[in-house]
């Protein structure tokens, strides 16, 4: 065997790095833990009333027990079905549960997150309808809409927005109708929307379908699926699963999904796991319909995505099985009760029905409210002027099963000062 230096002798001289990397020397495990503990201590771990697309829900211990198993954590994408039935089976279960929750016929094995699932759905709708215009509600998460615009710009897909009713906080159906035409590929709405309001999904779907457009339904708070009527009139459902035992983790990694009606199956992006048999006739699972994907279709693929957020989707799957049919509903009802307790004292700005988030207007400036809450070691809600200048002075608050009554009472006190 050659000496180590000979291994790189063939590299052109003008390319090789002739000095060591300017990085500190490697440290011990103890020092690594100390470093990150110090960083963690610089982040507040207080009770929080922030929602806005990332939700605080208790993570059952078993979720990490399962996800930490080396056979799940350190395994590869299940291309070799014979030695990946563990992963493939859990994904098949995941796909099934998403269908059960959303009322759709097929669901994929997950996308990067809810925000990127939105443009994937828009591109799907463009392929299906042969049209290019997208209408997105302003009540869809602002960052989701920004991501949509980034993708759509290069696909020749003009994105137009329609407004919300200032009283109810839900979409303005008249505004939507006035903008729909026969060039519209899809209408995109989110429910509960960014303000926490439950949207009139059927009415929006009816309008979209009247013009031959698809309805894309988005959810950011997955726990709502345990209680709210599934969007049966939608054509494509996308959303974020972070609420299902995924740590907020300063914004990622999360897992998004795309689910749709059977007839759109071949336009779905992302991995799909299908059921089949092995040579002995035993039930077995495998990745399927791969010809949609980048490694085969290359430039004609339905998406360029290569990953599915398998480990994250596994955590969500364990969460869903632990809570189960009744548990998920009970969890959602607790969320509803906590948020309504808080909201009723603060007077929600909007009159529409809301799940676990709502907009309120304090008597003092929102910055002052949050400053006083910080003094009490509580993180308040999101000031809305950042995304909706017309709602300056308003705050978006979220209460979940983790919100304690004492902390909510503190918020109420500060609001009403």
């Amino acid at each position, binding site marked *: 065997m050659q000496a*180590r230096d000979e*291994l790189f002798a063939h590299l052109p001289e003008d390319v*090789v790095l002739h000095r060591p*990397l*300017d*990085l500190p020397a*490697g440290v011990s*495990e103890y020092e*690594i*833990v100390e470093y990150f503990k110090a960083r963690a201590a610089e982040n507040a771990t207080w009770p929080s009333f*922030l929602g806005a697309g990332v939700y*605080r829900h208790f993570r*059952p211990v078993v979720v*990490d027990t399962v996800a930490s*198993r080396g056979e*799940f954590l350190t395994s*590869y994408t*299940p291309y*070799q079905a014979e*030695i990946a*039935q*563990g992963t493939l089976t859990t994904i098949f279960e995941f*796909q099934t549960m998403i269908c059960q*929750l959303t009322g759709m016929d097929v669901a994929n094995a997950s996308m*990067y997150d809810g*925000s990127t699932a939105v443009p994937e759905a828009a591109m799907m709708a463009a392929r299906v309808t042969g049209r290019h215009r997208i209408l997105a509600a302003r009540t869809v998460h602002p*960052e989701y809409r920004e991501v949509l615009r*980034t993708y759509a710009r290069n696909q020749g897909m003009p994105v137009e927005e329609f407004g919300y009713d200032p009283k109810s906080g839900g979409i303005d159906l008249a505004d939507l109708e006035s903008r729909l035409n026969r060039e519209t590929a899809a209408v995109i709405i989110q429910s509960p929307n960014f303000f926490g309001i439950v949207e009139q999904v059927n009415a929006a779907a009816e309008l979209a379908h009247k013009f031959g457009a698809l309805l894309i339904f988005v959810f950011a708070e997955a726990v709502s699926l345990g*209680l709210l*009527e599934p969007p049966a009139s939608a054509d494509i459902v996308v959303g974020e699963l972070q609420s299902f035992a995924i*740590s*907020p*983790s*300063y*914004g*990622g*990694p999360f897992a998004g999904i795309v689910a749709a009606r059977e007839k759109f199956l071949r336009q779905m992006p992302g991995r799909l796991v299908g*059921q*089949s048999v*092995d*040579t002995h006739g*035993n039930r077995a699972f*495998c990745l*399927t319909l791969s010809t949609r994907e980048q490694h085969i279709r290359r430039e004609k693929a339905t998406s*360029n995505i*290569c990953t599915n*957020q*398998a*480990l994250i989707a596994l955590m969500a799957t364990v969460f869903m*099985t*632990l*809570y*189960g*049919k009744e548990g998920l509903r009970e969890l959602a009802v607790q969320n509803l*009760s906590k948020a309504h*307790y808080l909201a009723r004292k603060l007077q929600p700005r909007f009159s529409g029905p809301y799940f676990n988030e709502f907009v309120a207007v304090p008597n003092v400036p929102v910055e002052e409210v*949050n400053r006083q809450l910080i003094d009490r070691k509580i*993180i308040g809600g999101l000031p809305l002027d950042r995304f909706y200048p017309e709602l300056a002075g308003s705050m978006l608050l979220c209460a979940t*099963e983790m919100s304690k*009554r004492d902390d909510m009472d503190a918020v109420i006190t500060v609001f009403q000062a």
Partner: protein
Amino acid sequence: MIRKVRKHIVQNEPLIFERSSPGKNGCQLPALDVPLVDPAAALGAQNVRGEIEGFPEVSEVDVIRHFTRLSTWNYAIDLGMYPLGSCTMKYNPRVNELVARLEGLAWAHPYQPEALSQGALRIMQRLAGALLEITGMDAITLQPAAGAHGELTGILLVRALLESRGNPRKKILIPDSAHGTNPATAAIAGYAVENIRSNDQGLIDLEALCKSVTDDVAALMVTNPNTLGVFEENIVKAVEILHAKGALVYMDGANMNALVGIARPGDFGIDVMHLNLHKTFSTPHGGGGPGGGPVAVKQILEPFLPIPCLKSSGDSLTLDYDRPQSIGKVRAFYGNFGVLVRALAYILAHGGDGLRNATVDAVMNANYIRHKLAPYFDLPYPRPNMHEVVFSDDFQSKLGVRTGDIAKRLIDYGFHPYTVSFPLIVHGALMIEPTETESKQELDLFIEAMIDICGEIEKTPELVTQAPHDVRTTRVDEVAAARKPVLRWKP
């Protein structure tokens, strides 16, 4: 002789829905400390769903048994080597898992006040600095969620720069040896794809490149070392050709495990590149994700980076959204922070010298395999390889056995297959990348297995063509799965 594995009984397990029993539940909620709200009253009856039909109802022990049994049907790095080329299946250090779960990091909300998030921001800054030193680039975004996502971000940056100069141009040049995400990405970014043929050494053909680089070309997407594991020795000249025509060069960083500490893409002229944190930087594959695809750029592309960018403000860090030329956001929030934490932990553990040593070991391991298997397998492109080696099944296919069959027989020997039939420029490819993780013992077991299989091909080829035999699940009928797709369980 099969030495790495021996038969053992493995548990059976139905689907979770088939385990269900009405009334069972695995998670208990605390009692409400506020009044219970009636959903129909609060939301309107039409907004409240009926039961979630078919949803599982199981106990905690059911859940533990179910997933534990399923896990035993998986191969994993923790069980042994993955020789998968271009996947860099290295060991996933467990300290990474611990630090990512520290409460202050795991529970941080992306919208919490910056003053209360300095720990998270400092981690991002430290990682960014390290990755810039490793790549030799000027600026970086940690926002993309995976490699392909990074590719899209990178190409959008190219487009933004060219647009600012008056003409986004129309085409991206991609070598025929490229990973499928490259052309798919170009298409999503709104560019047409033109394939560049490799020369007879499997490298970029400079003459062909010269002819193809017109004023319509926005960029060349290149992988270096390429998907044969061979360093593009003409990379500097190739970059010159592109730059002379006002075009840029994008590098797919999938093979960085051959370069860290040895050569820096920024030094050989790359304008923009992505990194795969789940390859080079040890973050776990988790069965298919999550990953992390930071994109590093030269200064000319810096103004276009996705928002927000990290900025120093006095002695604290802030997220800067005031960037008028930014391409916008490629995903909500700031990136796969949990993955960034793991990558930084890996870098801290290794340090500069450690990272270089890892690269040297990775290249050495691949060359050890090449040296030992070269008598048995055809090496279509005999140039020096780096961290991976690509053989073809030429010798074996004459006896009716293909790369896919050999790969399946490898499973009976206790290994995950290598990468089959890729890159496309090699007919019947066997692409092998051991990584620095593997000791001589594991490499020798792998080499011995491959040699034994060659012997089987001569004497008892059906053993190979019908493989695997000893597994719980034999070859799955993928044709039936595609003809009549069943993508969910139904009662």
